[in-house]
């Protein structure tokens, strides 16, 4: 049922006090998996991803009534999720007082620590390769590669021109290919 209702209908229901909670529940059901995987690919760890997803939907609850519908709803949701991920990563950096490189190797270590990790399998090598990328390039790659997000929508999520995102994706894909071929 969650998939059948349109975003406009959802927004209309959300703006009515009597149906606000019901609309919110439908919205969560509709988008939770997409947002979860976007977050998980950034943060690797399930517990961290769950925390961030909680924060994402709380922000959605607070801000949805004022959503101007000048972009797709899911683009707006992805933007919130991306920003929450970046905020979480910043907080982790401050807590641990480590450099970004150390944090990235920390995420790679989390991948290796996964009980299902198999260094011989390409999908795991791909995850390690993705986490070698700089933060923003990593986001561009995962949004395009996994979510098949159009560049125009990605530019609204990341506030960067579509041309720059395309170039970034091309570079990212090449780097990942090199990593996989050499490891």
């Amino acid at each position, binding site marked *: 049922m969650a998939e059948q209702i349109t975003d406009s209908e959802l927004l209309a229901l959300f703006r009515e006090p009597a149906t606000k909670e019901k609309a919110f529940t439908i919205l969560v059901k509709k988008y939770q998996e997409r947002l979860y*995987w976007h977050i998980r690919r950034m943060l690797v760890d399930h517990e961290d991803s769950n925390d961030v997803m909680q924060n994402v939907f*709380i922000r959605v609850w607070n801000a949805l009534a004022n959503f101007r519908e000048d972009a797709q709803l899911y683009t707006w949701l992805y933007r919130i999720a991306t920003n929450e991920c970046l905020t979480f990563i910043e907080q982790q950096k401050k807590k641990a007082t480590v450099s970004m490189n150390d944090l990235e190797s920390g995420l790679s270590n989390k991948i290796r620590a996964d009980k299902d990790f198999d260094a011989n*399998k390409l*999908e795991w090598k*791909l995850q390690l390769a993705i986490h070698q990328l700089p933060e923003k390039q990593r986001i561009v790659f995962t949004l395009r590669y996994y979510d098949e997000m159009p560049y125009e929508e990605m530019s609204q999520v990341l506030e960067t021109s579509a041309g720059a995102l395309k170039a970034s994706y091309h570079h990212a894909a*090449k780097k990942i290919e090199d990593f*996989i*071929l050499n490891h």
Partner: protein
Amino acid sequence: MERSKEIEAELSGIAPALGKNGISVQPYQVPAGYFEHFAENLLPKIKAEEENPDTELNIISPLLAGLNRKTPYRVPDQYFNEFRIQKDLPVSPEARIIPIHSGNRLMRYAAAAVITGAIATAAFFSFHTTGPDPLSALTRVSDQEMANYLENHDVHWVPGTSAATPTASVNFDENDISDLLSNVSDTELEQYLPDLPGQKRTTN
């Protein structure tokens, strides 16, 4: 299509019927305007292919395009079925959103004008303040009060003293006194003559 003589000669050797009759006219029909609009019809298709993530990735990296795109991380069983917001959602009324640029510019300009005017007025009066005219105040003081004041406070001129001294000092000679008293009648002068035996007047 014109064929070179070499090809014609060759064809004549292989298949004379084809070579001599020159069956080179193609029988196929082309839709009207096909070539005129071919380029402009082609570009959107190229763009659409580029924007297709699969096609794009195939061009950049066939290796990546061929991978299974499933993320290998595991999710706890029933996680999505049971997902709930664990923190309390705020129920208070939404905070009023105040735009950065308030629409009521007129009030802001009016307030600024009032403040500027108040500051300017205060500055004007502080630099152009005129107190009560001391000369007009003196007209209310009687001559006797003036004389008493001068005597009680021992105010007198000492000829020859400098302007730095707190008391006024004026050097009068006889010509000055004549000039000063030129407009004063004898009757008025007599009013100011003290009826004190043996006292000399000191000029003020």
